[in-house]
């Protein structure tokens, strides 16, 4: 009997971990990645909260397992645009032609970062000193320059939480949940890089729900002297010499607050990347520029199978904002559901 085959769409952390778990269960795995390199957002990150582990270490260990496994075939630069049911299997469509066929499919298309320039009042894309949290990771990775003078060893830096999250103006009512702890992590990295700097976090709530998060927040306050100010920034405006003046309501003081900064970092949230349109025998994998919805799994809370249709499973942050440990665990759980399906248990 030939081995059963699984196709995975997306080679970010969810896709890579699904591939490893499924290959270990004995399946042939075809792993498709739209971009020219695997890793998703993980490939662009510097270090990971809360342990400050280099992101490259986690990606390398996942990639080593993927590349070493003879049953995993990774193809990059392949954009799967839809699926078609053919008997008991799924055909994978790439621009109107069949790219491959599999007994089951895992959709692991991940998320997109919120486009910071949409919050116009913060001036991203207009003032060079205003950058996104992802751009700050690129700076930490030495792929980008600091937006202030090299001689400035005591910069004043602001971090704005909830940019594009918990914001009906952006159409995103949800909390992206990883940005608060990312802000704390980045604030600590900034203080390590510039010990004489002043770092201010502008938050609405500090949502420190994960293992070790609250402890890291405590450490940021006590050991790194990061300032936390409760209040959402109303605007950022230029203040001469490339600096930025920000205004906010200091809601603990009940007074307006102003501050001039050398760099303003916008903690961008997660938005949907691929929104599947499910019909009877076909699934269209649509990419929306602005208003895609995360993939909804009915009954997910009570632990129903993580699938959209028989044999079409969904793993990772394409279902909604998630942290890396959650994504990796979800990929393992999805692999188990998938095995039960292919062995006739589910």
């Amino acid at each position, binding site marked *: 009997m030939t081995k059963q085959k699984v196709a995975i769409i997306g080679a970010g952390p969810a896709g890579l971990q699904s591939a490893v778990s499924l290959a270990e269960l004995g399946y042939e795995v075809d792993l498709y990645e739209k971009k020219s390199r695997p890793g998703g957002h993980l490939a662009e990150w510097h270090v990971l909260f809360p342990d400050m582990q280099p992101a490259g270490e986690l990606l390398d260990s996942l990639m080593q397992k993927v590349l070493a496994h003879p049953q995993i075939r990774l193809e990059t630069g392949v954009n799967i645009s839809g699926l078609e049911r053919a008997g008991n299997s799924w055909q994978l469509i790439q621009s109107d032609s069949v790219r491959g066929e599999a007994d089951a499919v895992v959709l692991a298309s991940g998320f997109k970062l919120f486009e910071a320039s949409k919050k116009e009042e913060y001036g991203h894309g207009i003032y060079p000193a205003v950058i996104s949290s992802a751009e700050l990771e690129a700076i930490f990775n030495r792929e980008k320059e600091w937006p202030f003078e090299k001689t400035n060893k005591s910069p004043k830096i602001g971090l704005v939480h909830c940019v594009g999250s918990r914001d009906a103006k952006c159409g995103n009512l949800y909390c992206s949940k990883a940005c608060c702890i990312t802000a704390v992590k980045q604030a600590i990295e900034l203080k390590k890089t510039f010990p004489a700097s002043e770092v201010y976090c502008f938050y609405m709530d*500090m949502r420190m729900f994960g293992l070790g998060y609250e402890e890291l927040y405590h450490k940021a*306050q006590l050991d790194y002297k990061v300032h936390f100010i409760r209040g959402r920034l109303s605007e950022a405006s230029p203040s001469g010499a490339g600096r930025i003046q920000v205004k906010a309501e200091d809601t603990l003081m009940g007074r307006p*607050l102003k501050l001039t900064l050398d760099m303003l970092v916008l903690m961008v949230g997660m938005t949907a990347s691929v929104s599947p349109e499910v019909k009877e025998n076909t699934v269209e994998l649509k990419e929306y520029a602005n208003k895609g919805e995360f993939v909804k799994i009915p009954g997910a809370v009570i632990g129903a199978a993580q699938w959209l249709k028989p044999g079409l499973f969904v793993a990772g942050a394409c279902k909604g904002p998630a942290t890396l440990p959650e994504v990796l665990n979800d990929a393992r759980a999805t692999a188990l559901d998938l095995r039960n399906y292919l062995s006739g248990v589910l």
Partner: protein
Amino acid sequence: MTKQYFGFSVLEQRSVNLDSEMPAELESLYQKEPSLRACIACGNCAAVCSAGHFAEMQFYRLNVMARRGLLHEMVGKAAACMLCGRCQMSCPRGVNIRHAVLMMSQL
């Protein structure tokens, strides 16, 4: 002669300006009581305060004032504290409040 305003009056500048230099005493306050930095302004200290119902005593607000460099405002309000220590027993962040208030009032 009093100033005439058109339909509204203007208060003196009330915005917090974090560009102004922080008073030197602030750093010495933090050195005397480093746990002050751990405050998250949850308000538990004020909710259990035995003076809070009769005087303007909210420890977390004193701390916010200190953080914004408004030491003058802070010192005046710290005097309302009776140093009973109830707040300290309830502080979820382990701030050494009694000692902190004492240091604040003596600045």
